[in-house]
């Protein structure tokens, strides 16, 4: 069991090394899809072997003569557990296979390591199952089961703790003591040693991949591919979404849902300068009829989108989508005439919607301080 634990540990660690690099497929020189198909095929093959082995073991261990033997009973349990643990891997592999047939998709680095780990894991299971099967067969034949010399040696070598039992610790007691503290001279635990080696190998591989062969992406390259991927994603989304809203075609949204969404965005982002109720603060009052950069949904949308950086109004187009800005602009227009307390004095000019201005009134330029005195 100890051996199994160790191998499993290593197998599980393997995906970690994927941190170290990219482009396995290109490095190996095999086309992505071929490599993928090969690996999945191999996994299915291994699974079939596991199943066959498990079945034969099950068959043997059910026979009565064996049941009396404690050790094999234990072995059967272990194997059953392993097989059960293997099942999720099976479904996973099938899922992956299913996806392949649907779309010609690329072998990613993570996937490679995952598949490799599964293969190694399955190989370990097969090894153990095979060994158990041999033991069972021998027992079935009535041969007494004696651990062979070399097997024992291997087992000894793989002993993960490799320490001297407490009863025998006198043999490795050092001959010194400090204030009553004595020291044993146990060997370095092998699992610890292997872990240390593994991290050193990781370190070397990491440095080689990133700084010598240049296979790994350093941070700026990584950033650029992230941006490129995002741009592509956005482009395909926008292509599906159809026409986009701009200051030329934006319209006022009167429905309550839109206004509500606009209000939420306003409270979270705009209120800090324009006040919770639009009364103004660091930014101008939005509830009066006066506009510095023009009223009406088109102008307000434009001001939100491009900002007025010189006066401290941020361009929001990088933070909000056009439809979000449309909702905020619409909400802002609903504030007109609400006359909140502590309203900031008007700034800019009275804005009259074009349709109305053709009627009778003209746009009047007003001195804001004069209006404040009115």
């Amino acid at each position, binding site marked *: 069991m100890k051996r199994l634990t160790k191998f499993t540990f290593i197998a599980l660690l393997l995906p970690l090394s994927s*941190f170290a690099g990219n482009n396995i497929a290109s490095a190996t020189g095999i086309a992505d899809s071929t490599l993928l198909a090969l690996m999945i095929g191999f996994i299915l093959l291994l699974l079939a072997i596991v199943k066959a082995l498990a079945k034969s073991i099950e068959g043997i261990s059910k026979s009565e003569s064996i049941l009396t033997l404690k050790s094999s009973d234990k072995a059967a349990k272990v194997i059953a557990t392993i097989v059960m643990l293997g099942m999720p891997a099976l479904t996973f592999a099938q899922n992956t296979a299913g996806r392949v047939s649907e779309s010609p998709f690329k072998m990613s680095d993570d996937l490679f390591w995952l598949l490799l780990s599964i293969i190694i894991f399955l190989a370990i299971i097969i090894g153990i199952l095979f060994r158990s099967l041999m033991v069972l067969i021998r027992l079935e034949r009535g041969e007494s089961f004696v651990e062979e010399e070399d097997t024992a040696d291997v087992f000894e070598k793989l002993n993960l703790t490799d*320490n001297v039992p*407490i009863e025998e*610790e006198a043999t490795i*007691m*050092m001959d010194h003591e*400090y*204030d*009553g*503290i*004595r*020291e*044993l*001279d*146990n*060997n*370095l*635990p092998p699992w*610890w*040693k292997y*872990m*240390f080696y593994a*991290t*050193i190998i*990781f*370190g070397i591989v*990491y*440095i080689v991949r*990133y*700084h010598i062969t240049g296979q790994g992406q*350093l*941070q*700026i390259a990584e*950033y650029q591919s992230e*941006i490129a991927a*995002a*741009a592509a994603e*956005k482009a395909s*989304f*926008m292509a599906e979404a159809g026409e986009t809203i701009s200051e030329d075609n934006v319209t006022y949204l009167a429905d309550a849902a839109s206004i509500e969404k606009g209000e939420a965005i306003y409270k*979270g*982002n705009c209120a*800090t*300068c324009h006040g919770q109720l639009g009364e103004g*603060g*660091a*930014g101008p009052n939005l509830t009066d009829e006066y506009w510095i950069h023009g009223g009406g949904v088109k102008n307000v949308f434009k001001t939100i989108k491009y*900002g007025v950086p010189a*006066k*401290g109004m*941020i*361009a929001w187009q*990088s*933070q*909000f*989508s056009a*439809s*979000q800005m449309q909702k905020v602009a619409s909400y802002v227009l609903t504030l007109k005439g609400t006359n909140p307390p502590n309203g*900031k*004095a008007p700034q800019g000019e009275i804005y009259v919607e074009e349709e109305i201005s053709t009627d009778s009134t003209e746009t009047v330029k007003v001195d804001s301080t004069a209006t404040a005195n009115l």
Partner: protein
Amino acid sequence: MQVEKFSYDNNIVRMFGNATILWGLVGMLVGLLVAFQLVFPALNFGIEYTSFGRVRPLHTNAVIFAFVGNGIFAGVYYSLQRLLKARMFSDLLSKINFWGWQLIIVSAAITLPLGITTSKEYAELEWPIDIAIALIWVVFGINLFGTILKRRERHLYVAIWFYIATFVTVAVLHIVNSFELPISLFKSYSWYAGVQDALVQWWYGHNAVAFFLTTPYLGLMYYFVPKAANRPVFSYRLSIIHFWALIFLYIWAGPHHLLYTALPDWAQSLGVVFSVMLIAPSWGGMINGLLTLRGAWDKVRDSAVLKFMVVAITAYGMSTFEGPMLSLKNVNAIAHFTDWIVAHVHVGALGWNGFLTFGMLYFLWPKLFNTKLHSMKMANFHFWIGTLGILFYAIPMYWAGFTQSQMWNDFTNEGFLQYPNFLETVTQIIPMYAYRGIGGLLYYIGVVVMVVNLILTARAGSFVKDEEAEAPALQPISKGYKDESWHRWIERKPTQMLIASLVVILIGGVIEMVPTFLVKSNIPTIASVKPYTPLELHGRDVYISEGCNNCHSQMVRPFRSETERYGEYSKAGEFVYDHPFLWGSKRTGPDLAREGSSKLRKPNSWHYKHMYAPRSVSPGSIMPEYPWLLDKTYDTTTTAAKIEAMITLGVPYEEGYSAIANQDVVKQANEIAEDMRASLEEEGFEVSADREIIALIAYLQRLGVDIEKGQTAKK
């Protein structure tokens, strides 16, 4: 062989023990305060001396250097004498060590709330205190080495190797990181700038963890665990390997605090791989601690000392596994700047340092007072409530870290940030901050119970001031030992041990720092990046003094989520005039590296109102209010000295500029004041150009401006 009679100095151990307890109570109480300030900003009390930015460094300094520091001295002074069969070299030096250290702590406790700080984390104290620290540390070193030289034990036990490495490395770290140019008694500028300053700082910062919180405590573990369990140490061989590997590898790992920053890639990668390689050497200590308890696990149930130590060692194992994982760049991308890091360090601090200290105190008190521990029940209560406290602390912080990181990185289908308003990502995790505070409170209750228990223990016994002991004198050896291994040899050669440790710890630092300082391509300059105006320099000093960098980073990492939110990622060349660097390590508030850029620039009056009453413009914000910035004036008499200092440090102001710099101060200050006067006076504010707030606004509005100018020029 002649047996010599001597006595151990228990008095100094008791003094340091008492100081550990006292400063533990103070430091953790301050920790509770800052924890709850993040839930209830009113707990900043609107007073400058108790605002988060000033008090948080007080907490970290108090628990690291006062609580753990005194704990180290208590444990070292106790174990060293016994392991060497000798009284401390000099009782006078012991006393100087003690009172000097307490004086440093008191001066820290006074200067930090006053806003006297260098801003460099865990090295905030100003230059006169830095010098005092160096002197007292040397006193400790002389005392340590003096005792070693007059020892009655030929070989040095593993604990002492760790003490020696601690002494030599902390000295190197402290001196190198504290290179600063004073302009007055309480103000200095870091010798290094920008990227270089960052590298030195985190070489120091990380190794403060390594050589102040780890190696001395491993030494203590190697003494107190086998003593309390009465079991032999598991493996001598393991202790050799893990000791040398640990001190060699640790020193390289600093750059993992700077992943995805403007630090050159190669230095970052070294930080990654050496951190990963640290797992095994760190775990070597854990294994040797835990396996020493083989065959003594039944004792753990009955011994308060061992119980605490087992949890401490386990916490050590957990955080030294988590640390390397956090050093992997893809994990770090998630965790850095979030509360995950806060959780990580507190597992180490509360679990490893805290619990090991408690275990040690439970061991020491009955010995020092020659009696039994007053109440096993109280100790058990302390153990359980302390453990619960750690869980209540850590779990919400992990949760908060994941949550916030995810919110920072969330995009809509249209390619916009899901949560463009940073505040949303803060208010989301405030409940987690509350749970964390409760966790801290539970832990604190445990400490109080321990203190009562120890006081009652002391009352019940009688203090053994000088503990009689005897041992044979050290016999001279002429030719060494036959068949001696190299390590047995160095174990009886303290000076060689000291030199070997020094060499081993210098390698990593030298290899990382020298090229960063000397090879120009590591920090490509940017033509449009110009020195700060004198008013901005004053503002920068306000920023430092208020400890803004405790909550605000100035480092846009090259991630889509960050360039979308803050603008262009930060470049090494942007920081060449930053003495000290102000990248920060935590984003409780948003990054400010591009605060003045057109993307993020807010009106001057917004900043004014935001500093005065953050919640009036950002409801739900947990930023402290800074009303005093509207009243306090910046000191124009120091302008010339500041400019001169910058020139000395290599900032290219024109010659003779220092004499006329104040004209520019007045001009820029008036511009800012005029810009907002009308709108602010309407709201009842009285705007005056000579106030700190004006300088701070000037500085904030400058951030991120230069690099943008460069691009406009290019276009």
